[in-house]
């Protein structure tokens, strides 16, 4: 009998570099156990538990960021470089914000909270692995993990047909896209003889032994790149593979939509960059044209379709498509600035987009107004504490300074100009102009059109006194101001603060983003 000789060189440091992922995985199991063993209602317990787990994972990621992490761990299948950690921050923050706003939703829709949170953590695990994967195999497994969890989460409101439809549609279309991606991976493996992204890049650069000299011009490579592009484009909802997005975003429970609209894209874009901008950077000419066309189509279609929406969640879905277009512009720049722009964009996008969904989620649970934009009429006059942050998110999404959205877009476009793609930037700026119309329409509905019942309070002024300073009635504002639940308050103001602070003092985080890109570029031997 032959006993294979295996050199095990997995050390504790290897496991340490996936510590955040391990924490999430352990937390997921813990939540499942809590779900079945703790009797009675346990929404508060599970919510807190999930938040603690996410915080622990954040701390572990931060520690890895501080130490710089390991360039390649567990036989070169995953990495804990700063690039992965930077995306982990976005993913974890968006998960935490989504969890924070879930309790109200869980109690109104009678969810099973333990399962729900376990699935969210499952998706987070998949996303973090996606951002950290250095091997095609890990990327695919991570993709399946996050997708499966999200399929179930989208259809989690079992008794609402819209939610069922969302879950089913997402499942069918997305698994179809997974197949494309897998096929692309297989062909890439066929051409280069390796599943390791680093080895693939050395092979294509022509420095590797045992790798076909004609690999870069192989038609299989073209087909593989095309298939992978389709797969990635599906998952991050890039036109023309975006059709599922509005329906799924509208039907899925709002906290889930909030979470997936940001975190899925962040994770997928991290992998997108690792595969295309890093591993396949030597064959940029193979994919740049396609990316260019996709970026333009995405910006144009996303923004124009958003103009016609009357449902807030659908509007945010199309706005998400449009933002994916801007991110593609930064990615198409294919330089260090562009990649750090993508990383920074997601951090900014986390705050502004999830903030907008917090607003929708709260209104849905109170039952006063749903996700129809028309029902937001005059909300500022009833509930200014809710309307003001929403205005910040809308201005940020539209890209007005001094908000995070402006800065993210600015850096993204500037990177494209630096790379000489002025055409993309011109389209981006013009479509941004279109986007101002629909974002500000929402603000106009909330602020400029008073609700019918909010008539000014009649308060006669004594005729003998001049209208001097003292005459202004103090009670011009409505006396009974609805109090927000603390979790919505925390969620929406965290997001608002993030959207503003990132716009005014982006320096530190932008430096972090470029450090993270330096790390990943060094890993692939790019300058």
């Amino acid at each position, binding site marked *: 009998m032959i006993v294979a000789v295996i050199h095990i060189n997995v050390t504790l440091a290897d496991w340490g570099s996936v510590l955040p992922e391990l924490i999430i995985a352990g937390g997921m199991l813990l939540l499942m156990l809590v779900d079945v063993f703790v009797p009675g209602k346990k929404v508060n317990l599970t919510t807190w538990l999930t938040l603690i787990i996410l915080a622990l994972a954040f701390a572990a990621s931060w520690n890895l960021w501080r130490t710089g992490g390991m360039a390649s761990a567990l036989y070169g299948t995953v990495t804990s470089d700063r690039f992965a950690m930077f995306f982990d921050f976005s993913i974890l923050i968006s998960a935490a914000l989504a969890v924070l706003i879930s309790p109200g939703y869980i109690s109104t829709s009678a969810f099973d909270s333990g399962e729900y949170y376990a699935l969210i953590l499952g998706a987070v695990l998949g996303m973090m692995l996606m951002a950290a994967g250095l091997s095609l195999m890990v990327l695919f497994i991570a993709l399946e993990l996050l997708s499966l969890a999200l399929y179930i989460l989208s259809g989690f409101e079992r008794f609402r047909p819209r939610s069922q439809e969302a879950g089913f549609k997402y499942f069918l279309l997305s698994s179809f896209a997974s197949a494309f991606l897998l096929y692309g991976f297989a062909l890439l493996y066929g051409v280069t003889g390796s599943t390791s992204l680093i080895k693939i890049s050395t092979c294509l650069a022509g420095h590797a032994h045992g790798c076909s000299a004609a690999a870069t011009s192989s*038609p299989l490579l073209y087909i593989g790149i095309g298939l992978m592009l389709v797969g990635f484009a599906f998952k991050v909802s890039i036109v023309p593979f975006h059709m599922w997005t509005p329906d799924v975003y509208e039907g899925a429970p709002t906290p889930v939509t909030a979470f997936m609209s940001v975190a899925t894209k962040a994770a997928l874009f991290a992998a997108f960059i690792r595969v295309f901008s890093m591993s396949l950077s030597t064959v940029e000419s193979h994919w740049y044209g396609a990316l260019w066309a996709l970026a333009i189509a995405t910006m144009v279609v996303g923004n124009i379709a958003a103009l016609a929406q009357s449902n807030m969640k659908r509007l945010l879905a199309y706005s998400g498509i449009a933002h994916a277009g801007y991110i593609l512009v930064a990615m198409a720049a294919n330089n260090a600035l562009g990649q750090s722009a993508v990383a920074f964009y997601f951090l900014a996008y986390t705050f502004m987009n999830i903030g907008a969904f917090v607003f929708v989620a709260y209104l849905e649970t109170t039952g006063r107004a749903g996700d129809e934009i028309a029902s937001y009429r005059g909300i500022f006059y009833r509930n200014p504490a809710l309307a003001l942050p929403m205005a910040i998110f809308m201005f940020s999404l539209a890209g007005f300074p001094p908000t995070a959205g402006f800065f993210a877009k600015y850096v993204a476009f500037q990177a494209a100009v630096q790379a000489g793609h002025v055409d993309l930037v011109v389209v981006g700026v013009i479509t941004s102009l279109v986007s101002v119309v629909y974002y500000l329409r929402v603000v106009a509905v909330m602020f400029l059109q008073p609700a019918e019942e909010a008539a000014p309070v009649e308060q006669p002024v004594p005729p003998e006194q001049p209208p001097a300073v003292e005459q202004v009635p103090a009670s011009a504002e409505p006396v009974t101001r609805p109090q927000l639940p603390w979790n919505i308050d925390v969620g929406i103001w965290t997001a608002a603060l993030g959207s503003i602070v990132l716009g005014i003092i982006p320096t530190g985080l932008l430096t972090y983003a470029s450090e993270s890109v330096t790390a990943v570029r060094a890993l692939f031997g790019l300058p």
Partner: protein
Amino acid sequence: MLTDYVPILILSLLAGGFAATNVIATLITGPYRPTREKLSPYESGMTEIQPPKQRFPVKFYVIAMLFLLFDIEGVSFYPWAIILKALRFPGFIEMLIFLAFLAVGYIFIWKKGALDW
């Protein structure tokens, strides 16, 4: 480059051709004399007791799915067992962790009532 794939193309043509030839040949050469019994679902001379279009309880699918899940996970024990000596103690620990995952899943579905028939 592409010429490397010519044998595969020839092989698939041959395979497809063989299958098609057989099907067509039986259609042409075989005698075709249908009777009522021959056309019934169980063509073994037995008459059906009740119509075969029945609904299976969904539990059946759930159990089948769970069986597949645990079965496939169980399969991964075999390669592990063969190289256990080389993996030594850390390998043992890793498998225990893997088992713990399975166990939690098992407890979960059990408690959720997925195994109640």
